[in-house]
């Protein structure tokens, strides 16, 4: 029983209509994607311009590209990027150290009032940090933590911890209960259970959590702006400093903006799949 030669029929008018509808919407999607990406593209493009080509009318799409803006950025960013890295990495590590046990206590072997605990954590997220910035400044002043990288680490940890706890908890809840029961039967105590069973299983989840924390810590402006001056100034502050009172600065600003944004953009592109989960605090998988 052999088949007749395939595609003996002309695709009927219906098939053709289906295909063109499909292609049509695909084109619309591309247009939308490019339009949305355009400002980013423009930012990167402008970063390669000499200042003279940056503030022109009409805006120029062709010019002789130069790396001088980037060189300027890299010569000036030293302390800023160091502070950003320390604050980001430091707070993320602290978040994981505090968050993993807390999530454990709210999921696998829950405390009696775990619901209250969870809601307490999320409520701190809902309180606007702006409301307490004045007294926070005063406290920082009095404890000599003002303009200190430690202050940022402490505050960023507090900022990301609730989100991390919800997120890590959602991963822990996915550990099959049979696995935990088997390890219990095998005589594993709490610590063993954590290190041998839970952590290995949720390690991709921990990575996603860390990435989300990195995104929020790196981009944070408000606290850095109000509580640091020079000794702990981070990348967002560097950006602000690229806007001088006078003189041309657009190309340099674009280069600084590009450099400042690239790490998080890369992190976000890589962690795309877990972004939704992170942002919805584990509610959407």
């Amino acid at each position: 029983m052999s088949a007749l030669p395939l595609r003996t029929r002309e695709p009927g008018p219906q098939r053709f209509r289906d295909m063109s509808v499909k292609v049509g919407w695909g084109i619309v999607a591309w247009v939308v994607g490019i339009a949305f990406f355009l400002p980013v593209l423009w930012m990167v493009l402008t970063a390669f311009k000499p200042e003279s080509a940056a503030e022109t009318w009409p805006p120029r799409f062709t010019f002789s590209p130069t790396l001088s803006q980037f060189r300027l950025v890299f010569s000036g960013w030293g302390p800023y990027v160091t502070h950003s890295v320390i604050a980001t990495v430091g707070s993320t590590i602290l978040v994981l150290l505090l968050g993993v046990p807390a999530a454990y206590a709210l999921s696998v072997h829950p405390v009696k009032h775990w619901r209250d605990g969870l809601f307490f954590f999320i409520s701190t997220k809902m309180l606007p940090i702006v409301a307490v910035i004045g007294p926070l400044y005063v406290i920082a002043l009095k404890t000599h933590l003002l303009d200190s990288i430690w202050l940022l680490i402490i505050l960023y940890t507090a900022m990301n911890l609730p989100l991390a706890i919800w997120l890590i908890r959602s991963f822990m809840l996915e550990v099959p209960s049979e696995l935990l029961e088997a390890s219990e039967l095998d005589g594993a105590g709490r610590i063993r259970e954590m290190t041998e069973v839970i952590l290995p299983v949720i390690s991709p989840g921990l990575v996603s959590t860390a990435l989300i924390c990195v995104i929020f810590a790196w981009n944070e402006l408000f606290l850095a702006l109000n509580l640091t001056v020079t000794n702990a100034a981070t990348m967002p502050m560097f950006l602000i400093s690229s806007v001088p009172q006078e003189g041309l600065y657009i190309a340099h600003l674009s280069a600084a903006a590009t450099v400042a944004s690239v790490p998080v953009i890369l992190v976000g592109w890589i962690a795309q799949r877990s972004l939704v989960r992170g942002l919805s605090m584990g509610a959407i998988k």
Partner: protein
Amino acid sequence: MAVVDTSTLLAPEPVVRPREASRRERWQRRLPLLPALIYIVIVTQIPFLVTLWYSFQNYFFDVPGGAHWAGLSNYKSVFTTAAFRSALWHSVIMTVTAVIVAMILGVLFALLLDRKFIGRGVVRTLIITPFLVMPAAAALVWAGPMLDPNFGLLNYLLQPFGVHHVAWLSTHALGSVIVVMIWQWTPFMMLIVLAGLQGQPADVLEAAKVDGAGALATFRELTFPFLRPYIELGILLGSIYLVNVFDQVRLMTNGGPGTATTNLPFYLYEQVNNAFDVGGAAAAGVITVILTIIVATFALRLFARVFQFEGASS
């Protein structure tokens, strides 16, 4: 498959049920929680208590003599200050507009991305990038290279439509800030809705096809009801994040022109930084917190109701 998962929130059966525990057992369970709990309490509640204290004080940075008891006078002046009320109003407008428009666009984009086409992954990456751009960077890039009246790209692109050298940040300041908020948060809404769309069981859609539903009818009767929990979640989370927006206001318009774009976060910032009025800022801060608690309580109740919906599986 994406699911709006109740199990991570309200009703979840924890993995190992708490047995009738001995005292020791109970403390064993509490112990891991304590570091994080204590940390958060110290770092967030103490500043808040201090804020509360200062709200009843007359304390100006630039006035020597420290803080004096002022009773409720700070609160009185906050409620009577037009600036506070206008900041509140601006916050409401900015948040509501941005959330609604971002959600509508998010749904439309998610519908677009739910179909297969060449380069779908690339387009998805392009659309989510605005969300990943550092808000400070986005603010400065929009303020300068995009919206500047003399060399901004937007004016150039809108020329064929009869738009000439508009100083967006002067004449349409609030709108401009809202546009940047929408630009950065639409991808967030889109991702949430897309997760929902991709969780819709395929055979239900096929059944609708066989039953004679066209594309519009399918969306109206099936897809939209299915997406409701996701849309509600997106609006909820988006509002929480958007109400606190600060970077764009500070860096694009600095609250201006005048106070045209001043929202609550920026108002509080100004009180501390320019007016040096710690007492007044504290009072405004406490009021902001109370308002947020009220809204958050509604929101949390909505959160709870949303999660009774198990992502609609039949």
